């Protein structure tokens, strides 16, 4: 299926992504390691919390990439790195062709207009002592884009866009309900007409009936203003609804990335499958009882000392010897589908032998094999025209 067909098949949701245009954001091998200090008289750095450890992806112009995963997987840290609330330990963040990973706060300032963030909790991310008008208008004054007497007009326009009464600009955040407050947060993020919005759990603090209002608003804004979204959420259903492309993170790494159909319909990574099967489903009411699912045991390991090889292997139902020895590469297995697993396959159809062994120059147990010839795999954040065909285990060119 070509990219256009995929998009056509996905109905109404956020259809405007232009895959031929250069992506608005390209993240390559992004790393964030927070130091851990030792106790004792002299506080040396004894280790690092590898919150984000080599993450690569692209956000298409006008498109939406969803970042999902459980708490502690590094998805929020990734969002904060892209808005440069943190300075990354390594890697590149290319925004419209410029690497912003190492820019100083001052050099970042003009770019802050283009990259904005929506936060999870509208109750704590809006200053309670400022009126809604001054919250929304502040970016205009900081960046000096409008003369003072025109700010109010723009604020009222923005309030109207997000579905609030423009006359309420002089009210305070506490006078609004949770959903309305999130609309204010969205209006604030829209003030400078950003090109990229990083939305970190934008609806998870809201009541269910309000979530839909906010999601629909974000979709309308995307169609109207052509904003690209990095949509970070733990709710798989919401991400599926909003994002044509999704990346699944586990312990600081992307384990699977692809378009909606690949991830939700044909997930090849056991973690993605476990996540999807764990979501309780309303349709189960007809049948009664619980849905069949992959049961994961135990907890997510510590990001200070992640497991060797594949990070998911300690909880993986299909892990074998090789998984502890060699880290699986994020292998492209379809036109818009990459997976980091030695045994990728749809649920219950995982291959018996690792598909990656020959590519990596090891035998099926992960021991280096002098006879094998490692293959140069297409890496990097983008999808390539050649990929690894899982069926006959050869490189396939589209």
């Amino acid at each position, binding site marked *: 299926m070509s990219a256009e067909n995929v998009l056509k098949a996905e109905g*109404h*949701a956020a259809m405007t992504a232009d895959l031929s245009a250069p992506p608005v954001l390209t993240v390559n091998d992004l790393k964030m390691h927070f130091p851990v200090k030792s106790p004792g008289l002299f506080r040396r750095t004894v280790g690092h919390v590898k919150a984000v450890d080599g993450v690569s992806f692209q956000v298409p112009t006008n498109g939406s990439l969803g970042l999902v995963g459980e708490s502690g997987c590094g998805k929020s840290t990734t969002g904060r790195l892209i808005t440069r609330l943190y300075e990354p330990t390594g890697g590149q963040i290319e925004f419209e062709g410029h690497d912003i990973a190492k820019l100083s706060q001052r050099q970042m300032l003009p770019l802050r207009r283009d990259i904005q963030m929506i936060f999870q909790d509208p109750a704590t991310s809006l200053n309670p002592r400022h009126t809604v008008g001054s919250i929304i208008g502040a970016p205009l004054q900081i960046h000096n884009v409008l003369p003072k007497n025109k700010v109010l007009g723009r604020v009222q326009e923005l309030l109207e866009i997000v579905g609030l009464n423009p006359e309420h600009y002089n009210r305070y955040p506490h006078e609004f309900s949770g959903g309305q407050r999130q609309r204010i947060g969205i209006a604030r993020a829209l003030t400078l007409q950003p090109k990229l919005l990083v939305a970190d759990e934008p609806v998870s603090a809201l009541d*269910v009936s309000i979530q839909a209002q906010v999601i*629909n608003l974000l979709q309308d804004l995307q169609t109207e203003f052509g904003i690209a979204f990095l949509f970070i959420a733990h709710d798989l259903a919401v991400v599926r609804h909003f994002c044509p492309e999704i990346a699944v993170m586990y312990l600081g790494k992307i384990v699977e990335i692809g378009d909606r159909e690949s991830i939700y319909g044909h997930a090849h990574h056991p973690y993605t499958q476990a996540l999807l099967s764990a*979501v*309780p489903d309303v349709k189960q009411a007809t049948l009664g009882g*619980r849905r069949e699912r992959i049961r994961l045991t135990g907890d997510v390991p510590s990001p200070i000392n992640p497991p060797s090889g594949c990070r998911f292997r300690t909880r993986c139902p299909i892990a074998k010897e090789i998984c502890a020895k060699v880290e699986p590469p994020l292998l492209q297995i379809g036109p818009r589908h990459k997976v980091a697993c030695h045994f990728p396959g749809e649920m219950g159809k995982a291959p018996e032998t690792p598909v990656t062994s020959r590519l990596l120059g090891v035998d099926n147990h992960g021991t280096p094999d002098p006879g094998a010839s490692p293959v140069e795999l297409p890496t990097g954040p983008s999808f390539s025209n050649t990929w690894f065909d899982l069926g006959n285990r050869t490189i396939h060119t589209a």
Partner: protein
Amino acid sequence: MSTEQSRSYLTVRDLVVHFPTSDGVVKATDGLSYEVSRGKTLGIVGESGSGKSVSSSAILGLHRGTNAQVSGEILLDGVDLLTISDEEMRRKRGKDVAMIFQDPLSAMHPYYSVGNQIAEAYRVHNNVSRRAARARAIEMLDRVGIPQPSRRVDDYPHQFSGGMRQRAMIAMSLINDPGLLIADEPTTALDVTVQAQILDLLQDLQREFNSAIIIITHDLGVVAEMADDVLVMYGGRAVEYGPTAEILVRPEMPYTWGLLSSVPDVTGDVDAKLIPIPGNPPSLLHPPSGCAFHPRCTHRDKVPGNLCFTEMPELLPVADGRNHTKRCHLANPDEVYAVEVLPAIAPDLAEEQR
């Protein structure tokens, strides 16, 4: 006594919980009735401020000593919990009826070890030594799936992961083998895979202990997989009540439709549109006239006259006598659902039914 009462372990009748404030009376729960039998699960669904948590606090008598005004009947195993003394109520808490809370981190005391808190729940109701209570706590931790329980028993809550804390809370609540367990948003603060583990555990334990469970949640998926019966609450009142398969498959109340259509579904049709419920949840201080849902209802024009604005509908059985009650004036909800709602939320299902 009717046979119905002997079957159900908990019967709530016409429960009213009002909080007088300086601005007026907050009618948190108004005329609520439901029942749960041993071994069965009731799901109470609603948004924040719908009164879904207030009624369960009333079952535990947590309102006692506050200025809340409570009336009606709460029959637990035949005893009206609203008429017994404070001391009798205290003896039932944790023993006959136990509760687990949404956020296990804040629900456990940060200064005491997990084992200490679990053992305390046992010692309050059983005259046993510290050592025996500790042994029992370890046994329960083992039962709820905490690895190395004899070592972890001395850990503090902050040393547990979120899922393990909720397991520990479940161990604490089930240590006295209560007949009724109230789980207030037990998995909302947890990740999905952990949520699935906790829900599995609750079901296993229910089979083992044969307790009645009330699970309070806003997640219809959790209700669909866990509950035998569903009670949908809006503005402090039940608006739809019946068996899960009935309520979630053939809902008749526009608010329930709204809940179903506003949440995306992980297996649902991507063409399905999210249809939000317009507006905001009602004020419990100044509830709307007539049907509390009418300001947000998109179907109120189908009811003749101004009935929705002026008259609160009764909670009545649905037309064809199924075991299903709803609070709505709509005369032909079946038809509206089949023609207008189902095609929007689940086109594949609508296709099948045609």
